[in-house]
């Protein structure tokens, strides 16, 4: 299976991309996927991070399914 991970602002700068694709083996939670991203991009740990699954704020325990759109970003600062 394949999932997209989106990055914005500070997290896109750290990762050097606005989007990556991962291929979990199945059964992972959102937390597992994010931990994998953080292992590849340890600079993200310098930030307080939020994440979303399919455009909804997510906890670590969401099931991840093929084709999901995940995102990792810092606390929002619009307005």
């Amino acid at each position: 299976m394949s999932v997209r991970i989106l990055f914005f602002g500070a997290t896109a700068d750290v990762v050097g991309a606005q989007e990556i694709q991962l291929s979990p083996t199945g059964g992972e939670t959102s937390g597992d996927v994010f931990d994998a991203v953080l292992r590849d991009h340890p600079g993200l740990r310098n930030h307080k991070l939020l994440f979303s699954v399919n455009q909804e704020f997510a906890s670590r325990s969401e099931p991840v399914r093929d084709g999901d759109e995940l995102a990792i970003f810092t606390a929002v600062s619009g307005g």
Partner: protein
Amino acid sequence: MDFYELTTDPIDITSVARRVVPPECGATVTLDGYVRKFTKGRETLHLVYEAYEPMALKEMQKLIEQARSLFEIANVGIVHRLGKLEIGETSVVISVAAPHRKAAFEACEWLIRELKRTVPVWKKEVYSDGEVWVEGDDPKYSLPNSTA
């Protein structure tokens, strides 16, 4: 009619405020946020706003629905600008029309506070000697444990 939009064009406050006006209401309260020249004493040259656009629109829609359940209001309009903004340009406008102006004030204040906590938009401050993505200090959603 409620509306919520993201735009890279300059925002006209009057037109936003006018679009929320129903004939039976007498007052609209509008919050106009704009680019500050100085933040903590440091001079900003310009700002760049970026959004997770589809999620930002969903969160804006949720905010309006929540505001309707909390306050006696008629219509809400929210427009957030994206891209490069010069000093003094409007970054966000929230207009609320209500039969009684007290509800319009309360709803407008609630909406801007929650927008800053929940809508996935980020601003980058650009200085003469660098730039920084601002990170919010009061996010609504608790931060997940990010220690792998």
